Structure formats: C-alpha cells, structure tokens
C-alpha cells in the first residue's frame, strides 16, 4: 500500500482507469450471468461490449476519481467514513449489492425500482461520503453518463429491445451515481498522503 500511496497523478490516473474498466466489465459480466438462466451467455457480445464501453467508463473513473480529492482540498470537505481501505471495500461491496438488487429484485413498476435504487444510492452516499461536493460530482457524473449511455452506447452497441431501454431509464442514473460515490472513495483513498496512513496505523 505504501507503494501505491507514493504514486504520482499519472500513476493514480492509470490505477483509476483500470479500476473503472475492470469494474465495468465485471459488473456487466455479473449482470449477464445473473440472467444466464434465461439466456445463454454470449461471450462475443460481452467482449465487444466491454471493449467499447469499458474504456469510456475508465475515462469517467479517472475524471471522477481525480476530481474528488481535488474538490475536497478546494472545499475543505471530509468524507463521513473513516479513511481506510476497509471502508472503501465496504462501499464497493454495497455498490455491488445495489447492482445485485437492481438485477435480481422484481419490482411491480419501474417507478418502484427507481425509487428504491435512488434511496439505496442516497444511503450509500450518506454512509460513506456525506459531503456536498461528493454529491454534486456524483450527480453530475450520473447525468452525463446517463446521456452518454442512452444516446450513444445503446444505439450503437445494443440493438436492444425497447424493454431494456425503458428499464435503463429507471435504474441507470442511480447505479451511475453510486458508481461515482464508490470511485470517488477509491480516488480519495489513493490520494491519501502516506504519513496520514502511517499515523493511522500508529494509532
């Protein structure tokens, strides 16, 4: 971890990029495999999708992950949870949980799905971040990501069914918001000065 903490911005950016790519691909794979009982896994399509979307997500992860510590410094804000990898992992696990709930829970209406996800993602923000700038950055990221996802990726990659499209509207912004919070906490942790971490350890 010490090696990570001493990294330059470039190194940090590349770590964030790989985080974003891997997380996107893995989540997509998870979604696909959760539905694997209903439709067989199409590895080629998955790969194609990942090649297109994962770099985009990686770039987004760089922006968000670098913006968080920057704005923190600028606005003197401090996330609610303790600054350590355990809480980052916890955040990550709950983010995966939100994805899980999204794809496994059957809701009567899309509105219910949307409200539930919104609440879950807000709760994630409340538990792990609780800063205004975190909220604003994540919302902005979610909005941008939604627009990009809706108008570019879906039209090109998916010849997707209309059902899938309408569902996307219900869940994507909130999942993107939680993703913003999660990657933000990762970015913050990466930007953590080493002495602080050592001090934490000393305590």
């Amino acid at each position, binding site marked *: 971890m010490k090696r990570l903490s001493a990294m330059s911005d470039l190194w940090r950016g590349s770590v964030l990029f790989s985080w974003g790519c891997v997380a996107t691909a893995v989540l997509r794979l998870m979604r696909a495999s959760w539905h694997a009982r209903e439709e067989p896994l199409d590895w080629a399509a998955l790969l194609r999708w990942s090649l297109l979307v994962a770099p985009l997500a990686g770039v987004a992860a760089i922006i968000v992950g670098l913006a968080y510590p920057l704005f923190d410094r*600028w*606005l*003197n804000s401090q996330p609610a949870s303790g600054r*350590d990898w*355990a809480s980052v992992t916890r955040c990550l696990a*709950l983010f995966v949980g939100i994805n899980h709930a999204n794809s496994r829970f059957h809701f009567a209406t899309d509105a219910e799905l949307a409200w539930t996800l*919104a609440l879950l993602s*807000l709760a994630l923000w409340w538990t792990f971040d609780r800063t205004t700038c975190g909220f604003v950055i994540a919302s902005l990221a979610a909005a941008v990501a939604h627009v990009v996802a809706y108008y570019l990726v879906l039209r090109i990659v998916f010849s997707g069914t209309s059902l899938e499209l309408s569902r996307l509207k219900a869940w994507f912004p909130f999942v993107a918001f939680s993703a913003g919070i999660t990657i933000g906490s990762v970015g913050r942790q990466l930007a953590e000065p080493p002495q602080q971490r050592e001090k934490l350890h000393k*305590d």
Partner: protein
Amino acid sequence: MLPPGEDVTGGATGLPGRVAQMYYTYGLFAASHPKLLSSAVLTVAIICSIPVVNMHLPSNTPQELRTTGPAEEPSQPAPVWFREKPVVYIQQVLVRAAVTPWQSDMILTDAYRAPLSRVFALTESIANFQHGNGSVQDLCFRAEEPVFRSPALLDTHFPRYTCLLLSPAVLWGSDRAAFQQDSNIIETVVKQQKERFYKTTVSNLVFGVPAKETAFTRIYKRQRFLTYAVTVVLRKNDPELLAGLRHRLLELYPLHASENGNLSSEHVHIFYPARTGVYELLPVALIYIILFIYIYFSVRKMESVKSKLAMSVSALVTVFATLMMSSGILIHHGLQQTLNSREVFPYLIVVVGFENVMVITESVSNTARDLNPRIRIAQGLSRQGWNITKNLFLEITILTIGILTFIPLIQEFCMLAVVGMCCDFFLQLGFFAATLSIDTSLQTALEDEEPAGEPSYADLRLRFPIGARGVQIQRSQSHPGTLSEPLGGPASVVKSLYSMDGLLGRLPRRLTLFYLWARSRFFQRLFSVFLVAWMGLLAYNGGLLHQLLAAVAPPPPPADQAAPAPAAAPAAGKLAAALLTAGEPPPPSSAATDDDLTLLRHRDPAVWHRLHDFHWMSLMRVYNVTTRGGYVTVLPPVYVSLAVSPQEALQARHPRDAEVSDRVVDRIALTLGQLEIADIDETGQPSQYPSPSSDYAYVPSSPFEVFLVVLLALPSIAFIIYLLVVLYRCVCSRNYAEWRSSWGADGQGAGDYHQQQVVLEALPLRLSGHSQQVECLQTDGQLLVSCCLAGQVRVWDAVTGDCVRVINRGTATPSPRASREDVHSDYGSGGSPPSRGERHLEQMAKRLSTPQLAQSDHQLTPTVDLTFSSRPAAPPAAADAPYDFSRFLAAREPSEDPGPAPAPRRTHRRVWSAGSAVAGAARDEDRAGAPPERGAIWCMDCSDGLLAVGCSDGSVEVWDAATGALKLVHSEVAVPVTHVRLVSARLVVARFNGTVHILTMQAVQQGVPIDWGYYSCSRPRLPTGGDELRWEAVTQLRWAGLSTARAHQQLITVLECCGGRIVTGSLDHMLRVTRLEDGSPVHTLHGHYGTVTALFVDRCRSEPATAGSGSAEGTLSVWDLTSGLCLYSVPAHDGAVTSLNCNASYILSTGGDERLCVWERFQGHLISKIALSHAYCSQVILLTSNLFVTSRQGSLMVWDLELGEPVRLVRLGDRDSSVFVRQMTPVGDAIVCDYGSELRIVRFPPVSAHQKKEH
C-alpha cells in the same frame, strides 16, 4: 487516581450518560468473568444455529416463468430450460366450501364435516372424467409405490399403481365410509399438519393449499370457509380434455361459475435447477472476493492488541456466529428462506460489519495502560456504548421501515438483517468483549513481567490526558454526540483551528457559499423528503393504504340485512362487540345467505403459490421422481365454490361429533400444543384472507411473528421518539444558537489539513532573578515587568527573556503582607492548597488589612528576616543577565535600617519632578541614588514602555520601563491604590475608597508640549548607552489634568478600560461605567447580589459593546455597555466567579467550585463544563479561538475549547507539583507566568504562525 470510570461517566447526565454508565457496569462484569461469559454466549449461539443444518444451502431456489398458454412464447425471452418439456403437469381443482346459512344450534364439527365430505364425489368425478377419446386416467401420471415410509400416511394411504391424484380424501384412504366413521376428523387433519415430509407437510400435500387456508389451523365453533384442492398430476397436457373437465366441473358446481371460470389462465412453470453453472457462480464468487478483501482490511486495522491473530479470529467468529445464529433463529421460527442465502450472506456481513468490533478494540486500547484491565474494558465500553447503541437503534429503525415496504425480498432481507443486528450486538458484548478482556489482561501481565525500564518521555506524554490524572470532563447535555470520541494520544493531537465566527470575515467567497449551502442542510432535508416519499409510494403500491382504508371504514351493510339485524342480535352488547371488531362482516348468525355466498368466491387465485417453493418437488419425491434440472408446469386451476346446506350438514353429522366438539379443542391443544385456541365467539371472524395484493408479502399472523414485529417496532419507536426529542431540543429557541454554532465544526470536517495545527511540545523559557515570590506581572507586548514581594521591579525582554533593567524603587518596608504571602507559598507547596474561593476572599482580606498592619508592625521584621534566610538561594541568573544583589539587600536592610515610620509618609504631599530621581539601573547596583522609601507596590500596569505603579501609600509612580527612569510621581492622595491602568496619555487610578482618578500626562520637549503619540513612539524602547540620557534630558512628562470620579462607595475590586470607557466593579455589588475623558458617570449596572469578582470587556471591537461580570454569589451577567442593560444573567458557579474571559463566540468562566464553564456568548447557554482540579490560579488565557490555557501545580494545561478536552500539558519545572502558578499573561504568541520566584515564558510556535489571537 479517580474512581474508575469517573472521567467519562461520572458527571455525564442524560440518556447518553446513563447508557454509558450501564456499559461501564457491564464491562466490569464481562471483564470479571471473561471465560465463563464467552463460552456461555458461544453455546447460546451454537444452539441457536442448529436449525441451519436444515437449510438447503447448496440448492438453488426454483425459478418461475408465467405464460398465458402452454405453448405460447412468454413475454420475456424464454430461458434455456423452457425449451424442454416439463417433467409433469399439475392440475388443481380448488374448492372453497362452507355451510351456509350457518345456524346457531350447530356444533363445531358441522362446519367441517359436510364441506369436506364433498371431496369424495369431486375426486370420483375427476378421476373418471372422459372427454372424446381421452380420459383423465390416460393422461395422468401413474404413481408407483411411495418410496418413503417415514410419515406413515405416505406408505399406507397415498395412491399406488394408480393415477397420482391427491385430495383430502387420501387422509381416509379415499374411502367415504372411513370418513363417515371417523369420530374426530379435526384431529385426523391436524395431526397431519405436523407430519413433515422433505420441505413440506403431509397435510399440505393432500390439501394442496397452505395450511392456513384450510381453516384447520384455528378451530372455532362457527361458520368456516374451507379451502382445499384436488391435485392431479398429469404426464401430458391435453388442453382439450382439461377444458372439458373444467367445463364439466363448473356445470356440476354452478355457484359463482362465471367468476370462477375466468379467474386465472396463467400457466406457471417452475424450474428446479439441478446444479450450479460457472456463470452463476461468478457473481457470487466476486461478492465473496470483495468480502474477503473487506475482512482483510478490517482485521489488519487491529493492531493495538496483544495477540493480533487471536483477536482477528475472535472478530471473525463474532461475525460468522452472528450470521449462523440469525439464520438459525429465523429458520427455527419457520420464516421461509426464499432468498438465495449464498448471495445474501456477504451483503449481510458487510452491512453488519466489523465496525463495532473495531471501535470497541480501539476504544479499549486507548484507555490508560496502567489501569486495571477490568477497568480498561469497562471504560472502553462505556466510551463507545452510546454510539453503538445509537447506531443499532438507527439501523433497526431503517430496516423496520424496509419491512414495512411489503416487498417480499426486501422484507426478508430486512428481517434477516434485523435479527442479525441483534445477534451481532449480543455476540459483540458477550463474546468479543470477553475475549478482548482476556487479551488485555494478558497484555498487562506481560508488561508486568518485563523489567520496568526508565519510562520514556513519550510514554509519559502518552499517559497524560486520558483521565487518569484527575481530569474530569463534563459535557453539556445537548452535545452528547461528542461524549465518547476516543481521545488520541497527545503526541499526535491534531486540532482544527477552524471556527465559524472567527474566520468568516476572511473566507473566500466560494467557501462562504459552500458553508451557506451546508448550513441550510439542503441535502439532509432532501434526503428525508425522499425517504418519506419513497415509503409513501411503496405503501400505496403495496396496497397498505387500501387495506387501511378498508379497515377504517366498515363495509356498508346490505339493505336487506338492515331490518333483521337488530332482531337477530339478542343483546346490545353483541352489537357493540360487532362494531368493535370493525371491518369484520356482521355476525354470521344473522348473515344473509347472499353475503355468505360472496365469501365463497375465490379471492386469491394463486393460493397454491404460497406453498413452499419445493412443494411440487417434494410431491414428486414421494415417488422417487426427481424434478431437478427440469420444470413443473402448473396449469390454471379450476375453481369451485360449494355451498353446503345446513340440512346436509346435520345429516352428515357423526353420532359422536357432539361430544367431540366439546373436548376436541382442549385435546388437540394438549397434544399438539401449537394451535391457537380462540374462545368460542360467534360474533368474531378471523381474517381468513390476507389482502389480495400482498400475496407474497410477509404479514405477521402467528403469535411469534407478531411478537417479532413488536420487538422490531419497539426500538424503532423508541429511537424515533428520541430523535424527535433531540430535534426539538435543537430547534427550540434555547438551544438553537448553540446547535447552529456547532454546524460549522461538524460539517466542514475537523481534520482538514489546511486549517489544522499540531500543538507541539512547548519548552518554557526560564527567567530568574527575583529573590522572592513574584507578585505582579505586566507586559506591553515587548517588555515584561514583574514585581516581587521584596518590592523589586524587573524589566525583561519578552522575546529573549533577558533582564533589561532592575528597578529598585528603594526599599519598601517589608510589610507583614510579604511574610504572610511567603508563609502562604510554603503552605501551598507543601500541602493541599486552599480552594480558590477561599483564596480569593483571603486575598481580599489581605488587601484590606495590609495598610493598617504596614503602619504599625515592625515587630514582624525578624520573622521576615528569618524567612528570607531560610529560603534557598535563588539559582544564579543566566550568564548574560546582570547579577542581582538585591536579595541580600532585602534581607539585610530591615535589620540595619528600621525604616521610616509610615505616619510621616502619609502626610507627605510631594510631587516628584520628572527625572529628579533616577533609579538604580541594573548595572549600578550600589544604591547610589538612595531613593526615598515608598509604599509597597499594590498594582502595576505597563503600556508603550511606560510602567505605572500604584502603591499602598497612595502614590502613583510612572517609570520608563526601558531606561528605568522615574518619570512622574503623583502622591497627592494618600488613599492606597488598588488598580492602575495606562491608556495612552491617561492613567486611571482606582483607590481603596472607591474613587477613580484619571490623571492626564503630557510630554514636554524643552518646555513645549508634544503629541503623546509622537512621544510614545519615538521614545527609546531599549537602552543603547547614552541615547536614553539625552532623550531624558530633552523630553519630560508632567501631569496635565486630574479628574475624579466617585465611582463606588467601597473598594473597587475589578477595573477594565476599553474604548474610552472605564468599567469598575466593587464590593458594593455594583458596576459603574465611567467616561475616560472626564470621569463622568455613564451607567450604573445593578444586578449582582454580591461582590463583583470578575469582569471582562469585549476587546474584540473598538467600541466596547458588551461587558460581562461575575460576582461572589456565582452569577454571570452580560451587559450592553451602550444602553447599560443586562443582556442576560445566569447562575454560573456554586462559588464565586473567579475569572472571566471571552472571545468572539464564547465566554469562559471559572469559579470557586473548581469548574470551568464555556458559555455561548450571545444567549448564555452552557456549552461545556470542565472540572479543574488543583488549579490554584483561576486565570484562563485564550490562546487562539479554540485553545485556552489554565494553570495547574507546576504546569500549564492547554485545552481544546470546543471539545472540552485537554490537549497538552506543559511542565514548567523539574519538580512535578511543588509550585503553583499564580499569574499568567499572554505576550504575543507566548504565555508568561510566574513560577515561584522565577518567571517562565512558554511559547506556542504553531499558534503564532496563524496569529489567531483574540486579544
């Protein structure tokens, strides 16, 4: 050492304090019997987890697909498994039957026997049905021999080598005669409800509907609506034949045929997965990887314990035992697990988390290491107890809200999580705390074994603030949240200097905007609105509203019933009872047939769906047919409603039914012990139907479930009430300001690195030279003037600590005061000091008594001499400081020269001309000038390099502090001087009799008056040889005016000058505000009922807007100086208020009760109380906006104002507690204090870098 735990819990009041106290008691108990407790708790956990064995961990939950027709494409893309043919088809004929109209003379079994007897005819007609060239016999699944023997009924009564057709008739071997001869059919049925087979019960298999629907779970003597099904298992699906069957059955049972025919046309395909594919394992594997990373990072944090491995294992055991225990409890009580537990468990662990375990560990390891391990555990628990409890309640509340959503999956997860939270809490306190105490005692034992080396400095520092040295912290009730924050070791104390009020003026605009935003709590409000809206939406969609409305408004009685109803109801009480059970239909005894017939409709089309997920699998398992890897198609059931006439019921009655009905209830209750036995009440009716839209949702029905719900609801309600109380406290006007002021600190992050400062170790600078106890200490920012009991005045450089001048005013008669003071100091160093209140009064008395004694007592001289000689020689001064002989002089002089009688001195009326007497400077010690004797120094003030001295004989001397030249003397008034203040060209002199003289000085250069400002700035500040002599020659001072204000009748005890006003407080309980220019009175401030003992004037602004005063009876009053009104007056202390201090937002007061109180300045709300023990000096100095300094025995203590916690201890000397600090003065970034006969300058460098001084 204090009694254990008192540092945190002793004084804390309110709920948090009580909770902390409870935790403390528990911690002591847990640490006393750790092994017993942990093993007991673990045993309980294991017992609770036993039912987990029954859980189908490796299996997968079945999947469902619904289609409208058998071959039609489903609306969703078809899953892979759907491409095959189903293993079997299930066709159910659901029957809903009741005796109607019910007659009041009927007996218990009448409600069951006749409706149930119809099943034989129905079964026959289904089994023998033929349509075209097909028949049910051809189509049906041919059962072979049942392979299981365990529930006896399977072996004896289940169909073998025939059509697999199950109905309640199977219970009597499909033999109508057996049924008719069965004297107790209820018992026959109820017995089978307890016979478990695989995932279901025999009763469920034969009835084909959940036991709850059969009306056999609750036995009442009244009309019952039975639901049962005839289940036919088919090999093939022949829609034509089945349509014919449906048609035929509806013909046979025409009641509600039209509705029953259209109820459902949905084919439900249930897939039972055979094995798990790689794809399906992937997400689960990922979750588990994340989980393990989380556990790794969490456990890695556990560093401050003796045995890391053991404690990590203990933490893991805690969490996993929690998991097992909660699942076990839920399974034991029959709450179905439809969630795939494999997928849910990791989230549950993450939600439950290791946080509490870590927090407890950290808190315990932060306690003082030299304490008893038992006490350490108790303290650690009590510090975190309130937080842990609060979080538990908060989480339970949130999860209870989740249960109220009535979305089955969320409900189930929430149930699991709530039970998990409670188990976790139980295990943490029972198991983990106990193992931690074992670890702690091991640690202590090992430390004892080690050779006790020299304790390092770091160790000492580490030990210092954690409550072991009599630091008592008491918090305001309205700031309970900060109660149990672990206090970091002082070596790394990081405190924010941020203060809302102090910094707002300098904030960048973006931050101002940001804080404004943060203060308006926009997001918090948004969040709560969101939560409420979400709950509302879900409740609405979940049909809760509908249900509630239905419950509130009783259904309108049918028109034809209105007339017979009163006649049928024999008593008014019955009607009232009926009304009380609002929402229930009217009494069945009087019910019209129409109403009963309506109730015979099938309200829940998918009633079979509430069977266990593996019901059909269990059914096929009886005949050793596996459905794993395949699916079962449940065809749309045929719904049949049966109205049985009372005549038929009477005919079907068994001769022994009458006696059965009397005792059956008791006997069944006795044998089975689980039935809910309701009193026979003809008016009531159980709610047989759950609300139509909540068919999957968990609605509590059994007593245990209701109990569980109540259990969940109670903490939630308690928490919400507490929350409301806290919110009310915050919002109500009394605490609002305080609450608001706390936002700044909360919201902006206390640990931010830019406005953060580390209070470093400060090394005191040692200024020695005085021979006796230093009595007065004044500074003008550059020079430091001190006066000792010997009457010697020394001038020091405040920066370097060099002695610049020694001003020998001539030998003042050693007054008895000196000896008394000396004696007092010995007393103070030896034994325990007097309390501050006492001391204050003593000082007062001293001042009062001194003049009389000074006039007459020369007998005391030998005593003085003796004291001096017995005193150890003062340590030699620093090398660069001139050597001081004055102590020898002081010691020798009284014997040589008895000194002039004070009486002639009192008659002196002399005005010393400026420069006529030049005091002996430090370089010429030999008393060449032989200045005339003067009175003892009672007070001093120093400003702009001028030193004003007020004496006991009423004279006031003005010295140039830098050159040591006496500039002016005023001795026209012989009343002793109690206070002097230099305010630019004016000298304010308060006299013993309560008068205030304002003397105006004028600087004269060769006879021409010059501007005072010019004088004060061009005067040589530090002597550089002959410079000052030349200056003295050309510039002189003279008195230019005198105004007298008769401010008080009695002694003036406190005096402050600020912004053109003089504020004085006196023994006569009053405060006077006087104008500085002419001495005319401005205001008289009444309100105290005792001597005014402390005073502050707001120096933050140029205009003196407010002043605060404290009195001997302990009140603190704050005044508006422009209007002379009292802003507020609060009882602050039990004893006298001894000092007051203020900054932009707080007022600090100390009192005779040895407490320091921090007040919110504008409203006067108490923010925190800090107990100061052994603080002899009542003075408090504000170092920055949130750091203040108090003195203790031989040391200074730096406190954090907002937290009310000690930050640093600065030791002034080698000896620990021999000398009391009596005087403290801030000089720039340093604090000057006396230390016996020496002075100490303590500099706080990081503070100075920020220049946050208020004064």
